[in-house]
């Protein structure tokens, strides 16, 4: 493919994903509501991702603390370590790292699941029985990712701070209550709320892209693999793009 074809393919894809998202908004308000499937997806997408997200969050907090300490010691502000970690985790690292792990786990699994359903004509089967597979498969999953990721991010933040607490105490001795005071003392609404709001967008993007890639999977095993793979790649990039937009919006709105 040459450049112009690539560019055209890029815009076509973007447009297709956008109209897929628009279809989601059209369908989401209409009954019937697939409540059971939604709850099941929440369980699979949210609860069952917690061990992985928790582990990465914990390591993130611990490693960040250990890595930051030498620089802070050099400047003689070692005591600021918990405050610094707190701001870093809440504002940026918690949401973005969790979203990336989430994109890797959930984006690919949605992409592969819907992809194989498409390839084995299960989606067609739902369609011909007049059961609106979009509502059953896509709306529930996108809603679940949109609502579950923020919760996962919050829990990852909490676990990361616990990791950080242990990290602070590897060298040095900080009581939990002092750590807590330092961590919460520096936070402002501007640190927590914009970061919290953007996680909904992360979750939505990951869900929509995963579903889109799976729903429009090409035939064959390779098609399914490709769907899963592209779902992860595109949603990871989208997470960063949304992050960029979010930081500019919060800056313009003076929420920082």
């Amino acid at each position: 493919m040459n450049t112009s074809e690539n560019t055209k393919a890029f815009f076509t894809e973007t447009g297709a994903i956008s109209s897929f998202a628009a279809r989601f908004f059209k369908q989401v308000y209409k009954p019937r509501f697939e409540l059971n499937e939604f709850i099941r997806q929440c369980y699979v997408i949210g609860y069952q991702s917690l061990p992985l997200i928790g582990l990465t969050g914990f390591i993130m907090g611990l490693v960040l603390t250990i890595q930051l300490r030498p620089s802070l010691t050099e400047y003689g502000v070692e005591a600021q370590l918990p405050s610094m970690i707190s701001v870093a985790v809440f504002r940026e690292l918690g949401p973005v790292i969790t979203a990336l792990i989430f994109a890797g786990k959930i984006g690919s699994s949605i992409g592969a699941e819907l992809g194989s359903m498409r390839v084995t004509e299960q989606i067609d089967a739902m369609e011909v029985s007049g059961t609106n597979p979009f509502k059953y498969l896509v709306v529930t999953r996108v809603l679940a990712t949109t609502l579950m990721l923020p919760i996962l991010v919050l829990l990852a933040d909490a676990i990361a701070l616990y990791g950080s607490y242990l990290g602070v105490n590897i060298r040095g001795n900080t009581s939990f209550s002092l750590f807590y005071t330092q961590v919460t003392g520096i936070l402002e609404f501007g640190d927590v709320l914009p970061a919290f709001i953007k996680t909904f967008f992360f979750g939505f993007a990951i869900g929509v892209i995963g579903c889109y890639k799976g729903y429009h999977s090409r035939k064959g095993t390779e098609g399914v693999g490709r769907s899963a793979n592209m779902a992860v790649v595109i949603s990871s990039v989208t997470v960063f793009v949304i992050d960029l937009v979010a930081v500019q919006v919060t800056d313009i709105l003076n929420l920082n």
Partner: protein
Amino acid sequence: MLPEPIPVVKAKATAEPVIAIHELAKSFGDNQVLAHFDLVLNQGENLVVLGKSGSGKSVLIKCIIRLLEPDSGSIQVLGENIVDLNEEALDRLRVKIGFLFQGNALYDSMTVRQNLEFPLRRHWMNVSQGEVDGLVMEALDNVGLEETLDMMPEELSGGMRKRIALARTLILKPDIILYDEPTTGLDPITGKEISELMIEVQHKYKTSSLIISHDMKCIRRTADRIIVLLDGRCYAEGTYAELERSSDPQVKNFFE
């Protein structure tokens, strides 16, 4: 002897057509799959569409259920032009049409019971659990597989899966059943069983069937009338016996 093109038989005055296709055309890129295709399926009739693989048989029935959008022409199903229907009306009409996929398209993450309940729950929302159970058992009884109720599709053999797929198709009590290569990939004995089941079902529920096949044994057992699809058009038409005796080399090919 000159080959006698068999004239297209229009709907008999006594039987009301359930499907009437007129001037249907469908192409993929430069590949004209169907052109000026006409077909009439009468009430209570078993019509077989015979053709080589790649001749557009699958495209034809996917156009009837509107999994594919035809380029031009009209498709009257139960008195409504399916091409013009909006999404909701289409879903309502689709309930009256059963579709048996070549690959069965069983929902592989659900048990047999959930597979059968799936369309039921979404169309007849106000039936009690007892009635649903009754309908599920009736459908399984029709195909003789009551014992598989709580099994997963992957635990079943090919023939059993085909039966379950048929049961799932039957559970909504459709007026028309579209069979996409019902015996392909099955051993001859199972193929025979499936063919017999198809006839049994037709007698029991008084359905009209459109069968896509190139399995001559199956066709001989099930067909009331046969249409030979060639070059995107209705090439020949007649009963099995009539076409078997045809002197046309293209038609003869199928019967050798």
